[in-house]
C-alpha cells in the first residue's frame, strides 16, 4: 500500500483535527442518554487500554501480554485507595497510573533478561493470571470474589455516579495521555522504540541504550493502562477479579489488531469500533459472540493493517510519521 506524505498545510490540518475532535466531543452529552453516555465512557477507557497495549506489541515489537495485569492493578489501586484510605477518586488516577507503571517495570524485567517471542508471551500471561489470583485471595484488601465497591462520592456537588461528569473527566485524561504518547513517539525516544522493534542489535550498535528504551516503554504503557484501570473502577463502581481475565485480554488484543498494530489512530479506532460493536449485537442474544468473531475476522482479512490503513488511503493527514517531517 502506498501512502502520500502530508504537506505542511495538511499537517496543520491534522493538528487542528486532533484538538477539534475532543472539543466537539464536549457536546455529546447533549445528544446522549445514560446508556449511550455509559458506552462512550467505556470507549474512552478502551482507547487508553488499547494505546498502552499497542505501544508494547506494535511500536516496541515485544510479544508481551501483561496489559490486563496493568489494567487490573490500576483498577484495584484506585478502588483500594478510595474505599480503604478514603482518598478522593480523582486523586487515585495518577497513583493508579504509578502502580501500573510499577507493573510495567516488573513485566519489562523478563524482556530485559533477553526473553523474547513466545516465552515472553507466556511469562507475561502468567503475570496477568498471578495478579488475578492475588485479587481473589487477598480478601481483606480486594474483597475477594465479592469484589470491592467504590464509595459514593460527589465532585462540584454532582454525584460521581453521573455519567456526564465522568465523561468530562475521562475525556480530559484520555486526551492528555493520547497527546503525551504521540509526543513521546515523535521524539528521539519514540524513534528509538521503533528502531528496537526493527532490529535490536543494530539499534544497540548505534549506542542507543536498548534496555532503557524497553524499560521506559513498558513503564509508560503500564502508566497509561493503570490510569485506564482507575477510570474503569469508577465507570463500573465495583471492581471484580473476573473483569481482568483472558477475555479482557483477547478483546484488547482484537482492538489493537482491528485498529492497526502500532498506530495511535488505530488504537482509537479499534477501541471505538469494538466497544460499540457488541452493543449493536445486543439485538441478537446468544449470537453476539459468533457475530463479533466473524466481524473481527472479516475486518482483519480485508484490512490486515487495520482500520487506520483505510483512513490513510483516504487522506494523507492520517499518515502517522514518527520522524521529523520537512516543511
Amino acid at each position: 500500500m502506498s501512502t502520500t506524505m502530508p504537506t505542511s498545510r495538511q499537517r496543520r490540518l491534522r493538528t487542528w483535527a486532533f484538538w477539534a475532535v475532543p472539543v466537539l466531543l464536549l457536546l455529546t452529552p447533549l445528544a446522549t442518554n445514560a446508556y449511550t453516555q455509559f458506552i462512550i465512557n467505556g470507549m474512552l477507557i478502551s482507547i487508553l487500554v488499547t494505546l498502552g497495549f499497542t505501544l508494547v506489541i506494535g511500536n516496541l515489537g515485544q510479544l508481551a501480554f501483561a496489559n490486563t495485569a496493568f489494567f487490573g492493578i490500576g483498577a484495584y489501586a484506585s478502588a483500594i485507595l478510595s474505599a480503604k484510605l478514603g482518598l478522593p477518586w480523582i486523586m487515585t488516577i495518577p497513583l493508579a497510573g504509578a502502580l501500573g507503571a510499577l507493573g510495567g517495570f516488573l513485566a519489562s524485567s523478563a524482556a530485559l533478561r533477553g526473553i523474547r517471542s513466545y516465552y515472553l508471551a507466556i511469562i507475561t500471561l502468567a503475570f496477568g493470571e498471578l495478579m488475578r489470583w492475588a485479587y481473589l485471595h487477598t480478601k481483606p484488601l480486594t474483597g475477594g470474589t465479592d469484589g470491592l465497591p467504590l464509595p459514593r462520592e460527589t465532585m462540584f456537588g454532582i454525584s460521581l455516579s453521573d455519567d456526564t461528569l465522568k465523561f468530562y473527566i475521562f475525556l480530559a485524561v484520555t486526551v492528555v495521555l493520547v497527546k503525551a504518547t504521540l509526543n513521546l513517539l515523535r521524539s528521539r525516544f519514540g524513534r528509538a522504540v521503533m528502531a528496537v522493534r526493527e532490529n535490536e542489535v543494530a539499534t544497540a550498535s548505534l549506542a542507543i541504550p536498548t534496555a532503557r528504551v524497553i524499560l521506559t516503554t513498558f513503564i509508560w504503557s503500564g502508566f497509561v493502562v493503570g490510569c485506564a484501570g482507575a477510570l474503569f473502577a469508577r465507570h463500573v463502581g465495583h471492581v471484580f477479579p473476573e473483569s481482568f481475565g483472558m477475555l479482557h485480554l483477547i478483546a484488547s488484543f482484537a482492538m489493537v489488531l482491528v485498529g492497526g498494530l502500532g498506530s495511535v489512530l488505530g488504537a482509537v479506532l479499534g477501541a471505538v469500533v469494538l466497544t460499540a460493536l457488541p452493543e449493536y449485537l445486543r439485538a441478537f442474544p446468544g449470537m453476539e459472540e459468533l457475530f463479533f468473531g466473524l466481524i473481527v475476522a472479516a475486518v482483519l482479512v480485508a484490512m490486515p493493517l487495520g482500520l487506520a490503513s483505510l483512513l490513510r488511503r483516504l487522506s494523507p493527514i492520517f499518515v502517522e510519521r514518527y520522524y521529523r517531517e520537512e516543511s
Partner: protein
Amino acid sequence: MNKLTTFLTAATLVAAPAFAQDDAWETQGLTDDAITIGVMGPFSGNASSYSKALIGMMAYYDKVNEEGGVHGRKLVAVQEDTACDSAKGLAAAKKLISQDEVFMLQGNSCSGVALALRPTIEEAGLPWIVAHAVSDSISDPLAANIFHGVPTGRANGYAMAAFVLSKPDTKNVAIIEHSNDWAHSYSNPARDYLKEHGVEPTAELTMERGQTDATAQVLKLRQNKPDFIIAALYEAETAIFLRDLKKYGMGDIPVMGTAGTDLENTLKRTGDFETVQNYYVIHSYVDNLDGEKMKPWGDMIHKYYPDEELSTFSFVSIGSAEALVSALEAVGPDLTRSKLIAALEEVRDFDTGILSDPITWTPEDHQGVKGSAVAGFVDGEPTVLKAWGQPY
C-alpha cells in the same frame, strides 16, 4: 394579596412540569395493554446455563399473557444480555432504564453483576425483583425498590444447619469447605445457626478446589467421629470427599451439601450409590425435578420454549414471577411504580407451589425467601425433605 396570588401562580407554573415528570416516571414503560419488564441475565458467555432461570420466568409471563394478562395488560419482557460481566451488565441496565424505559426489572443470575448494578438501580428507583442471584448484599442493607425472590446465601446456610440439627442427638458437627467466598457464603451462616443453637463445630477443615484426594481431611474426621458433616464444596470435590469417606469406613456419616451440587449428578460422578446414600443437598423446590408437583412447570416451559432442555435452574425464578403477578393484581388497573412497590411489601407467606418456602416481603425486609428444603436418598429414591426423616 395580588402579589401573593401572582407568586403562587408563578410557582405552580414552574413546579407543574416537575410534578408532570414525576407522574410520567411513575407510569414509564406502561401502556393500556402492556407492562414492559427488563429481563437481564447471562444469555451468552461461560455462565449462559444460568439463563435457563430467566427462560422459565419468561415462560410464566407467556402463560399469564395467554390467560389475558394482568388487568388487561400483557407482560412484555425486554431481554438484555449481561454475559455475567459487570460492565456489560451495567450497560444492559442503563439501556433498559434510560433507553427502553421499562416499567420494572426482574431477573439477574450472577451475584457479582447484581452487586455492581445495585447503586445504579437503587438510584433509578424502579422496582427490581432479583430472581436468581443469591448474594445477601444485593438486598441487604434494605433498598426501597430492590426485592429478593429466591433464597439468599444466608437462607441456604441456615437451612443446611437446621437440617443437620433436625437429626436427633446431633451434637458433634464438622465443617469442610473451600477457602473461597462462595463456600463461606454457605458455611458462615451455617456456623451462626449452629452457634445460636448451642453447637460449636468440632472440626473445621479446608479442601482446596481442584484437589483430587481428601485422605488427610478424612483421617482427621475419623479421629473426630462427627455425627454430621457440612460440606461447602463444589460438585467435583464433593464426589472425591464422599469417595474417600467411604474408603476409610465412614460412609455412614451423613453429609450436608450446598445448592451448588445436585444429588443425582453427584451420584453420576461417583458411580456408586453406597457412596452418596447419606448425602443431602439444599433443594429449593417442593418436589424432585421429575416429580409430579414439578411436571406442570416443566410442561409450561416446553409449551412456550419447545426446545428448552430443563435443568435445576429452569424453575428457580418462576416463584418470584408469580409473586409479582399477585402484587400487580392487588394494585388494580391504576398501576404506578410506587403502588407496585407498596403492593410487593404486602406480599405475605405467598405459596408459589414451586419453591419449597413461601415469599414474604415487608417494608423492613425485602429478602423474601427465608429457607429451603433438602434433597436426599430415602429407600434408594431421591426425596425432598423438610427435616430429617420428614418428607416434604
